[in-house]
């Protein structure tokens, strides 16, 4: 979760640095203007410094909340932090990349399970991001034109996003129970789709359950973002398209999607980071030992550190995930940014 925030807020930290580059030029301009101008210049300089001073608390908060914990995490991954060294963890033995070697050694059960968990997480993320984006787009486009009841529908669509995650997921847990859950009542008792009552919380179906619950929880964000993006598309574009006799499908491909590109660029990244890192949904649904089929990285790492007291190893796994997410994010922003420039 730290990584995702740091990602999304990254531009906010770097932005103010740009005007700072111009500073030397301005001070040379003031050089040699005499004493009368000196007072005003001083005041101007103070005014110039003020924005940075005002940003300082934010910078300190950012360092304290995101950057320092991340660096501590990296440092922890190089130490042997177990129950023996936990109490005086700042003086835990330095073991270099041993934790990484263990986590990345695919021949060892630790590495093999991490790889398995990574595969599960990637598949999970792809499905969730794809479905959330499609659902969000479909719903936003369907509600683009005013009609009676549009406001009610918009509110209804946003409900999953507004509910406290824990409460919502616990409700899903009840619904997914094999004997008494609503899902089996509908699928088996009413519709008669299965002869045998399927399991949704253990075994292979647990993965589908996790994907469905995560989509349910996350897609309203895609809906909200795309709805906002649609507001900025000028009606004239649609009018012109209609005059040319464009079908709804052509309007979607020719007008809506190109206009949404900047929105989608950020939206997909945020959805990706959220799904990849989500902890609350799998943990609430399955407890601290998730079924192997639904053993996503966040829970897997939690189990490898907190439950088994090996914090160094857990940190090493987290750092590996951080590097992967960083790589994906940078490549994605670079590739999608290039495409946007090409298009314009």
């Amino acid at each position: 979760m730290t990584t995702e925030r740091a990602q999304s807020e990254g531009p906010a930290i770097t932005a103010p640095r740009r005007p700072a580059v111009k500073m030397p030029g301005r001070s040379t301009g003031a050089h040699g203007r005499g004493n009368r101008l000196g007072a005003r210049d001083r005041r101007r300089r103070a005014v110039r410094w003020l924005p940075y001073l005002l940003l300082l608390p934010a910078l300190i908060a950012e360092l304290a909340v995101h950057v320092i914990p991340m660096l501590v995490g990296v440092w922890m991954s190089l130490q042997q932090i177990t129950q023996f060294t936990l109490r005086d963890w700042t003086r835990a033995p330095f073991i270099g990349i041993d934790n990484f070697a263990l986590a990345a050694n695919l021949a060892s059960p630790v590495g093999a399970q991490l790889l398995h968990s990574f595969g599960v997480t990637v598949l999970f993320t792809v499905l969730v991001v794809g479905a959330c984006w499609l659902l969000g787009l479909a719903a936003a486009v369907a509600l683009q034109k005013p009609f009676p009841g549009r406001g009610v529908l918009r509110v209804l669509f946003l409900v999953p996003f507004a509910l406290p995650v824990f409460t919502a997921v616990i409700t899903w847990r009840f619904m997914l129970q094999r004997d008494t859950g609503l899902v089996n009542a509908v699928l088996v008792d009413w519709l008669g789709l299965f002869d045998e009552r399927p399991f949704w919380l253990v075994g292979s179906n647990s993965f589908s359950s996790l994907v469905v619950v995560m989509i349910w929880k996350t897609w309203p964000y895609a809906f909200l973002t795309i709805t906002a993006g649609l507001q900025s598309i000028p009606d004239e574009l649609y009018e012109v398209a209609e005059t040319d006799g464009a079908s709804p499908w052509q309007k979607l491909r020719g007008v809506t999607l190109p206009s949404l590109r900047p929105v989608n660029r950020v939206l997909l990244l945020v959805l990706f980071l959220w799904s990849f890192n989500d902890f609350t949904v799998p943990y609430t649904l399955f407890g601290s030992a998730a079924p192997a089929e639904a053993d996503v990285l966040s829970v897997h790492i939690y189990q490898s550190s907190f439950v088994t007291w090996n914090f160094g190893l857990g940190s090493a796994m987290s750092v590996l995930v951080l590097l992967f997410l960083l790589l994906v994010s940078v490549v994605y922003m670079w590739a999608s940014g290039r495409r946007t420039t090409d298009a314009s």
Partner: protein
Amino acid sequence: VRSSKTAAVLAALFLVLGITSCGSGGESGSKTLTYWASNQSTSLDADRQILQPELDKFEQQTGIHVNLEVIAWPDLLNRILAATTSGQGPDVLNIGNTWSASLQATGALKQFDDAAFEQIGGREKFLASSMQATGAAGQPPTAVPLYGLAYGLFYNKKIFADAGLQPPTTWQELVDVAHKLTVPSKGQWGIGIEGASYTEGSHFAFMFGRQHGAQLFNGTEPRFDSPQMVSAVKQYVDLISSGVANPSDAEHLNDTEMDAEFSSGKAAMIMQQNNAVAVLKSQGMEESAYGVVPIPAPDPLPAGGKKVSSHVAGINIAAFAGSENLSGALRFINFMTSPDEQKLLNGKLGSLPVLKDAYNDPQFSTPLIGTFRQVLADQSESLPMIPQESQFETLIGTAVKDLLAQAASGQPVDDSVIQAKLRSANDQMRSGG
């Protein structure tokens, strides 16, 4: 204007620094103690109401005020670990007794050497079996027993009487009885289990493992995949494979889910610790409606096997080594483990006293308590008291949980499947996962 702006900026800065640096603190002097209690009764609030009058009593006797915080089980270990790393913790705390050796290894808890034992009334006052689960062998313990727990086999008296059956005394009888009591058309099953709980899975793997003669560790070298362990895990998983437990039980994550099946008559038997008594009562099932016998073992016992019906379960009490009021902490531990408090608290919380002397109280001479007491005193063995105990619980427990899920979805779970799963857990334990 400028100075007020600067002041505002500085104020904002201090605010931020203040926020980031808080979390330290925690008052303690010679007249106050902070006590972290684990959740023992039906709710955190019920625990507070039971404990507070006793803390007031302690304050009257000693003038030491105790700040109580009752902590739910899912949070307790994380809170203790956070306190361990930061050095900012309570003065006295409760721990699950299976964590004793792991927490002992951190050095965060006060060692009970002879001098410390003298201040709390001596090592000899405690039940010998409960003392087993206070730390690694050969080292001074870092916790002492507080509440005793043990497993028992709960059986529904009415269902048994209607079928003309007696509670089982061997594992074969248990399976046989369970078959007779499984009536899927009535939604009734022979036995209920808590399949998705990895802690339960690890407890039964240990208990049945000891019945089959398994040694989980040779020193610190894991032996999870021995033929004895395979038989032990099979004994548990077969409850689902052979159709005497509802396959849906593989989803049960909490005690209450399994207890509800028992109290509603959907399961004729359950294997639970004695704190289930309070839960069953809250679900409307009175003590007269069920009986408890020790969880039976195979007969004859396999070679090297022992008649183990429970691990030494329970809660220990410990003093935080970083406490600024260690003498007050020891006085409080002495108070909580005194015969009077042991009788009163264990009576209210539905647990077992950990003192030999406390059992002369009539409230502990019911047949129900008698069974649990006998199991705890004579038929229980401590889980391995080694620092890696929690890894064992996680790895074996998760393996058992996965196997139960497989059995529940109709896949065959035979010796080779179990062996492969246990070997993988063993390899992981060995490689330090």
